[in-house]
């Protein structure tokens, strides 16, 4: 009998270790797949920029990793662990006495370094770090071709290591106050990643202003021609590939208990369920984007992204047919709202990030309230409701918009937000890197599409706009003096 018990204990220990190593490997490889999102962002934005700004655009994506990684290690992970009740968790008697999960997120804890007894903390942290890069990068495309690299890095650090992770603590954790009190349900981060990044980007864009020449004197929008639309579309396809890793990393493996998978709120789900929804979401989004834009390639692919974002919040519970229909509506919404933001709001969002991520992120959470109301969310089984979802939207919009607006305003005040107009006109790459990055390719005149649809050489248009900008600057200086 004693021998049988000993064997059972040994088998149990072995299963526990196997389960831990399975989880460790799983999260590790989601991190590998999620890198594709960042390769994709770089290609996407690089293709959308004009030739003279290619490398400055790409450098933003690369250095996002350089600034968000340490700031998330030192501060962001701690915010996720310790701010789930709104403010900081109680019990901060000393740095070694943080309570529970909060204690494991402090950068000096034994969970945040090599630890032979802990297979999960490091890879779980890394998965969240990749979410942080993604959130920071969403803003990146909106601001290209005129923001200073350093201003972008400050803003993306704030977004990636403070703003989004605070909202994740509140509404994307099993202990978050929005979850335990209101049943807030955003399982694959429609709002907590995408919507929040879009709202933050909107706050930044209001201070940053449009690129020189984007609007004519009557306020009508012109269109810049990105130097390589094929690269942009390839970048989007890479982002889509990486999204499978993102989706998978949003689940928790619990391989010793049926059904083996939990969502971020620790409610049961399966990997297959979310894979269904993401794939159908792309199909619906492409379809909606294609019809709403009348076949425009950029908006067709962006529609795919918007479709997935629109169904991500309910990806663990939606039927594929429902997800397909909702994703079509999301793809269409992205196109219409993107054009409205550009033409009516006169905000120059170079890649439609506010529409695709912001508008569709909020839309996705609202849809859960309508189509998945009553689902028991989280360890407290609080029913998801339209009211609870709206509560989350009302909490997260100011949480995201205000920091973006205020910090970009401060940077603007100190003249550290935007490059000098001469540099913008010449192209950022010459100032930042003293180089053209297609040295063997013949230069052809840059073109621009007028509000009438006519495509013309851009130089006269931009020089006229530059004169207008300089006139405004000169009169502002005279007023100051």
């Amino acid at each position, binding site marked *: 009998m004693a021998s049988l018990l000993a064997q059972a204990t040994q088998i149990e220990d072995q299963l526990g270790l196997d389960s831990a190593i399975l989880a460790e490997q799983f999260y590790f490889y989601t991190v590998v797949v999620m890198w594709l999102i960042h390769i994709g962002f770089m290609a996407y934005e690089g293709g959308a920029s004009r030739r*003279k700004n290619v490398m400055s655009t790409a450098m933003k994506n690369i*250095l996002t990793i350089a600034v968000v990684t340490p700031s998330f290690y*030192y501060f962001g992970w701690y915010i996720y662990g310790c701010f789930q009740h709104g403010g900081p968790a109680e019990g901060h008697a000393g740095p070694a006495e943080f309570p529970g999960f909060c204690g494991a997120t402090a950068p000096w804890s034994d969970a945040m370094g090599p630890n032979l007894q802990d297979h999960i903390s490091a890879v779980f942290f890394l998965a969240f770090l990749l979410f942080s890069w993604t959130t920071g990068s969403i803003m990146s495309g909106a601001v290209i071709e005129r923001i200073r*690299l350093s201003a972008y890095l400050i803003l993306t650090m704030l977004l990636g290591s403070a703003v989004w992770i605070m909202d994740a603590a509140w509404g994307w954790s099993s202990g978050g106050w929005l979850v335990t009190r209101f049943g807030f349900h955003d399982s694959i981060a429609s709002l907590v990643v995408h919507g929040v990044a879009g709202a933050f980007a909107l706050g930044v864009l209001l201070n940053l202003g449009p690129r020189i020449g984007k609007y004519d004197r009557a306020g009508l929008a012109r269109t810049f021609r990105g130097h390589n639309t094929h690269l942009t579309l390839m970048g989007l396809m890479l982002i889509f590939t990486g999204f499978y890793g993102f989706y998978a990393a949003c689940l928790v493996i619990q391989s010793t208990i049926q059904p083996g998978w939990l969502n971020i709120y620790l409610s049961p789900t399966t990997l297959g369920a979310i894979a269904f929804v993401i794939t159908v979401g792309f199909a619906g989004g492409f379809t909606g984007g294609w019809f709403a834009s009348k076949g425009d390639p950029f908006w067709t692919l962006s529609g795919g992204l918007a479709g997935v974002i629109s169904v991500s919040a309910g990806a663990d519970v939606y039927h594929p047919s429902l997800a397909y229909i909702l994703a079509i509506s999301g793809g269409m919404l992205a196109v219409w709202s993107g054009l409205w933001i550009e033409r009516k709001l006169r905000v120059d969002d170079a890649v439609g990030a506010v529409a695709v991520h912001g508008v569709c992120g909020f839309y996705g959470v609202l849809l859960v309230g309508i189509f998945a109301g009553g689902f028991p969310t989280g360890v407290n089984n609080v029913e998801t409701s339209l009211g609870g979802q709206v509560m989350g939207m009302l909490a997260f919009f100011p949480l995201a918009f205000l920091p973006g607006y205020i910090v970009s305003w401060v940077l603007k005040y100190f003249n550290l937000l935007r490059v*000098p107009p001469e540099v913008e006109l010449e192209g950022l790459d010459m100032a930042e890197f003293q*180089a053209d990055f297609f040295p063997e390719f013949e230069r052809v005149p840059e073109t621009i599409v007028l509000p009438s649809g006519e495509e013309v050489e851009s130089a006269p248009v*931009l020089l006229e706009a530059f004169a207008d900008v300089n006139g405004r600057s000169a009169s502002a200086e005279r007023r100051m003096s």
Partner: protein
Amino acid sequence: MIDSFPFDEWSEDIAAFWTFGPGNSTGTYVLTVLGILVMVAAFVGFVWLENRKLQAQAELLRAAGGIPAPGGVPPGPGPSQPPLAGPSTHPGE
């Protein structure tokens, strides 16, 4: 043979070793503070260095007696700061 390795002993020895000591110790507090200081210094450096580059280029462009023709000027003949260190990206240099 692999089962005969003294994994338990090794694990204990290795677990006790951590550069500057185990978690929640003076060593890890010091490393954390140092890392944060380096990170902040890097941010200051990003702002300072880029501001210097942008202002220098803007001055060059103004001193050249005009504004650049957007999208039409090859990088060679136009006003430019000295190239960055490392392999040249300018053809013919």
